C-alpha cells in the first residue's frame, strides 16, 4: 500500500477532465459534493461574520456599535444563513453526497442530473436571499413570526422568504436522491443490516427533508401572499390567526433540527468505530434510534409554543412527546460511549472532534429536557437559555460532527493528508472557545435576559463579555482549518487509499476515488464495522 509513490498520477475524479465546464456541468456526485462544499463554506463565513458582529455589539450593555435595526437584521441574517444555507445542507449535501454512493458500493447517486439540479437550485435560493440582504436586509428573525413579518416589517421579507422557498426544493431533491439510492443502488451483499450507520442517519434525515420541506415552502408562500395581497391568513386584523403561522412554521422547523443533527450523528458512528477499532455497540438500536427520531420529531413542534397561548392540554401532550424524542438521542450517546469500552483507541483529530461532539451534544440534549418541562420552559422560553441550548446542539453537536467528518474523509476527498498537529490544536480551540462562548449564556438565560435584545441591563455584562471572548477563540478555531485545508491541497502528504485503516467500501477504492468510484462492483460479505477481520496493520501515516 505504502509503495504507491506515484510518478504518473492515476486518473481520478479530480483530474479526469479540467475546465470550468467540467465542474458546472458535472453529474459526478463527488464533484457536486465539492460544489456544495465550496458554497456552504462561503455561507458559513458570511453567517459567522454576522455572528461576530452580534457578539461584538453585546460586549457592552448599551446598543452602541450598530443601530437596533441593524442589530435585528444581523441576528436575522445570521439565523437564516446558518439554518437554511449551512446547517441543513451541511453534512448531507457535502459528505453525504460524496460518501453515500461510495458506502453502498454504487457508481453514483440514483439521479445524477437531479443531484446537479439540486445544487443549482440551492445557488439560486442562496443568491436570492443574499440579494435581499445586500439590498438592505431582513429583520424578522429567522422565524418570520406573523403578523410582524406579514404586515409590520418594512424590510426585504419577500426576498429572504423566496430564497428559502427556492432552496427548499434542493433539499427535497437531495433527500429523494438519498432515499432512492439507499433503497435501489446497494451493492450485492450490502443488506440493510450491513449498511453503515452514516447511511441510516442520512436516510432518516432524507425522510424528513422530503416530508417536511413542502410545509415550510407552503408556509412562506402564505406569508408572501398576506404580505403582497393583504389576504388575511395570519394577521387578526385581516381575519387571520397568528398562531396558525407558528404551528405551520414549527411543523417543519422542529423536524429540521433533526435534518441537521442526524447526519452528524451518522458521522460520529463511523469515526468512533474506526478509532477504537470496534464494531459499534448495539448496531440495530443506533439505526432504529435514527428512524425513531425522524418519526417522533414530527410530533413535537408545539413545544416551541408553550407560552404562545395554546391550550393547556395541547401543551401537555406536546411536552410528553418531547420527552419521548429525547430518549433515542440518549440511546445513541450511551451506545457511542459503550463502543469505546475495551476498544483500542487512537486520538487522531476526527476522534477528538467526536469526543467533543458527544460531550457537547449531551449538554445540548439534556438542556433540551429542561425546555420540554412545561414549568421550567415558561421561565426560560425565548431567553438566552434557549439560545445556548440550540447552539450546543447545532454548533457543539452538528458543526463539531461536520468538522470531524471533514477531517476524517479529507484524505479520501482530496487525496491529501491535513497537518495533524495543527488540526489537533484547532479541535482544542473549538472545544474551549465554544464552551466559553455558550455556557455563560445558560446562566444569563435563567436570570431572564430575553434573546434578540440589542441592549440589555448592565448586570448581564460580565457573562456577555466572557461569551464574546470565547467567540474570538472559537473564530480562531474555525479559521485554522480553513487555512491548513487549503494548504494541504498543494502541500499535504499524498493520502493512501485507507489512511485510518478503516473498514467501509469508501476506503477500498483509491484516494481520491476514480470517477466511477470502483473499478468493479464490490461484493459485500461482511458486517458493518467488521474491525475484527480487518488486519491490525500499523499503517501509521507519517506526518
Amino acid at each position, binding site marked *: 500500500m505504502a509503495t504507491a509513490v506515484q510518478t504518473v498520477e492515476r486518473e481520478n475524479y479530480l483530474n479526469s477532465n479540467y475546465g470550468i465546464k467540467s465542474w458546472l456541468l458535472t453529474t459526478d456526485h463527488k464533484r457536486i459534493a465539492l460544489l456544495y462544499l465550496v458554497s456552504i463554506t462561503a455561507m458559513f463565513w458570511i453567517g459567522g461574520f454576522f455572528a461576530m458582529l452580534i457578539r461584538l455589539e453585546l460586549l457592552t450593555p448599551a*446598543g452602541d456599535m450598530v443601530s*437596533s435595526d441593524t442589530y*435585528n437584521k444581523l441576528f436575522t441574517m445570521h439565523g437564516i444563513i446558518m439554518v437554511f444555507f449551512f446547517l441543513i445542507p451541511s453534512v448531507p449535501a457535502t459528505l453525504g453526497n460524496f460518501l453515500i454512493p461510495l458506502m453502498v458500493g454504487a457508481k453514483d447517486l440514483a439521479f445524477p442530473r437531479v443531484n446537479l439540479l439540486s445544487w443549482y437550485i440551492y445557488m439560486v435560493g442562496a443568491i436570492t436571499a443574499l440579494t435581499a440582504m445586500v439590498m438592505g436586509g431582513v429583520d424578522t428573525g429567522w*422565524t418570520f*413570526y406573523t*403578523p*410582524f413579518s406579514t*404586515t*409590520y416589517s418594512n424590510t426585504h421579507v419577500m426576498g429572504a422568504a423566496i430564497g428559502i422557498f427556492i432552496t427548499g426544493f434542493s433539499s427535497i431533491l437531495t433527500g429523494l436522491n438519498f432515499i432512492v439510492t439507499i433503497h435501489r443502488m446497494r451493492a450485492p451483499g450490502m443488506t440493510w443490516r450491513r449498511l453503515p450507520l452514516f447511511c441510516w442517519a442520512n436516510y432518516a434525515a432524507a425522510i424528513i427533508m422530503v416530508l417536511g420541506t413542502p410545509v415550510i415552502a407552503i408556509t412562506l408562500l402564505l406569508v408572501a401572499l398576506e404580505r403582497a395581497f393583504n389576504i388575511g391568513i395570519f*394577521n387578526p*386584523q385581516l381575519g387571520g*390567526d*397568528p*398562531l*396558525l403561522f407558528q404551528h405551520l412554521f414549527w411543523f417543519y422547523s422542529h423536524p429540521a433540527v433533526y435534518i441537521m443533527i442526524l447526519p452528524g450523528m451518522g458521522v460520529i458512528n463511523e469515526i468512533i468505530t474506526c478509532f*477504537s477499532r*470496534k*464494531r459499534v455497540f*448495539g448496531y*440495530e*438500536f443506533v439505526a432504529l434510534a435514527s428512524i425513531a427520531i425522524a418519526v417522533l420529531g414530527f410530533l413535537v413542534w408545539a413545544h416551541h409554543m408553550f*407560552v*404562545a*397561548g395554546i391550550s*393547556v392540554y395541547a*401543551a*401537555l401532550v406536546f*411536552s410528553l412527546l418531547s420527552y419521548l424524542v429525547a*430518549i433515542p438521542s*440518549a*440511546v445513541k450517546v450511551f*451506545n457511542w460511549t*459503550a463502543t*469505546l*469500552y*475495551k*476498544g*483500542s483507541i487512537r486520538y487522531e483529530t476526527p476522534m477528538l472532534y467526536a*469526543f467533543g461532539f*458527544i*460531550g457537547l451534544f*449531551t*449538554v445540548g440534549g*439534556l438542556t433540551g*429536557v429542561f425546555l*420540554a*418541562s*412545561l*414549568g*421550567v420552559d*415558561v421561565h426560560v*422560553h*425565548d431567553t438566552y437559555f434557549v439560545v445556548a441550548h440550540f447552539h450546543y446542539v447545532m454548533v457543539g453537536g452538528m458543526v463539531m460532527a461536520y468538522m470531524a467528518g471533514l477531517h476524517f474523509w479529507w484524505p479520501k476527498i482530496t487525496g491529501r493528508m491535513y497537518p495533524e498537529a495543527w488540526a489537533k490544536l484547532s479541535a482544542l480551540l473549538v472545544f474551549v472557545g465554544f464552551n466559553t462562548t455558550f455556557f455563560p449564556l445558560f*446562566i444569563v438565560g*435563567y*436570570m*431572564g435576559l*430575553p434573546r434578540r435584545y440589542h441592549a440589555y441591563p448592565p*448586570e448581564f455584562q460580565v457573562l456577555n463579555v466572557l461569551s464574546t471572548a470565547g467567540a474570538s477563540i472559537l473564530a480562531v478555531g474555525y479559521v485554522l482549518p480553513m487555512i491548513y485545508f487549503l494548504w494541504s491541497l498543494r502541500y499535504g502528504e499524498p493520502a493512501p487509499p485507507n489512511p485510518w485503516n478503516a473498514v467501509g467500501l469508501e476506503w477500498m477504492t483509491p484516494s481520491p476515488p476514480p470517477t466511477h468510484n470502483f473499478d468493479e462492483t464490490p461484493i459485500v460479505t461482511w458486517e458493518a464495522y467488521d474491525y475484527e477481520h480487518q488486519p*491490525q496493520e500499523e499503517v501509521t501515516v507519517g506526518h
Partner: protein
Amino acid sequence: MWKNLPLFPERASALAWQVDGLYFLLVGVSAFFTLLIFALIFVFAVKYRRSAHPHPVQIEGSLPLELAWTLIPLGICMIFFAWGSLIYFQEARPPKGAMEVYVVGKQWMWKFEHETGQREINQLHIPVDRDVKMVMSSQDVIHDFFVPAFRVKADVLPGRFTEIWFHTTKPGTYHLFCSQYCGTDHSGMIGQVIVMEPVAFQAWLSGGGSTGSLASNGQQLFQQLGCATCHRFDTQGRGPNLAGVFGKPVLLDDGRTVVADENYLRESILNPGAKIVSGFKPIMPSFQGQVSEESLMALVAYIKSLAQPQQNEPGSNRPPAPETSSVQ
C-alpha cells in the same frame, strides 16, 4: 450574591420556588449524566488507548443494557413531566378574586390600566402578597410579558386576550421584559414591576392619575357607542341583556354552549356574527376598527362589573386558545 455579577434571578412570587425546585432537580440530574458520560469517555479513552490496549475486544451489544438506558431515562423524564405539568397547570388557572390589571402591548411600550382607572406606561405598581392577574392583548404584533423574578411569561397577541397571574411575595422593583421579538425597539420594550407594601400601594392608588374607574369608562363608552340601545337591561332589547352574563355559560343558536369569558366578549364586539346567542338575530354591526384596545378593555371591564355578586361559575380560566375562529 455578588452585586456586580448576579448569577441567579430573584424570587418574588409564590411560584418561583416551585420552578426553581424543578430547575435544580433538572440541573442535578443533567450534571450527573453529563459527568458520567465525560468520565466514561475519559476513562475508556485513557485505559484503552492504542498503546496500552492494542487488541480490541469485539462486543456485539447488550439487550439488557439497551433496555436499561432506554427505560431509566424514560422513567426520570416522566418525573420531570409530571412535576413540570403540575406547575404549568397552576400557572394556567388564576385563582378567583385576583386583582386584575389590563395590559396593552404595542410597539414598543407597555400600557397598564388598573381596575380603579389608574394608567401607567412601562411601570406597573402592584401590592405585595396578592394574587394579581393580567388580562393582556396587543395592538399590533405579538409581544410577550415576562417578569423573571416571578418566573412567568405569556405571549401577548393581537386579536385576543391572554392571561397570566402570579402571587407576589416580596416588595421590590423587578424587570419587565418583552420576550417575543417585536421589531426595531424590542429591547427597549422593557419596564419595571414595582411590588409595594399594601399601605404604600393604597397611597399610590389614591395619588391620582385616575380618570374614573375602568368600568365606569366602559359604561360611558357603552352609551356613546350606542350599545345600550339594543343591550337593554330588561327583556325588551334586540340584543341580549348583559347583566350577569360574564363568566356564565351562554347558549348559542347552533346549540353549542360557550362560557362568556373575556375572549368571548371581545369576539362578540369585533366579530358579532361568529357566535349568536340563541333567540337573537345576527343584526349587530362589527366594531372592528372603531374601538381601540383600551376601549375594548374598558367595555369588557364594564360588562364584567355587571356580573353582580361574585359567585361565578368556574369560568375564568386561561383562555382556551387556540381560538378556532369559528365562523358559522
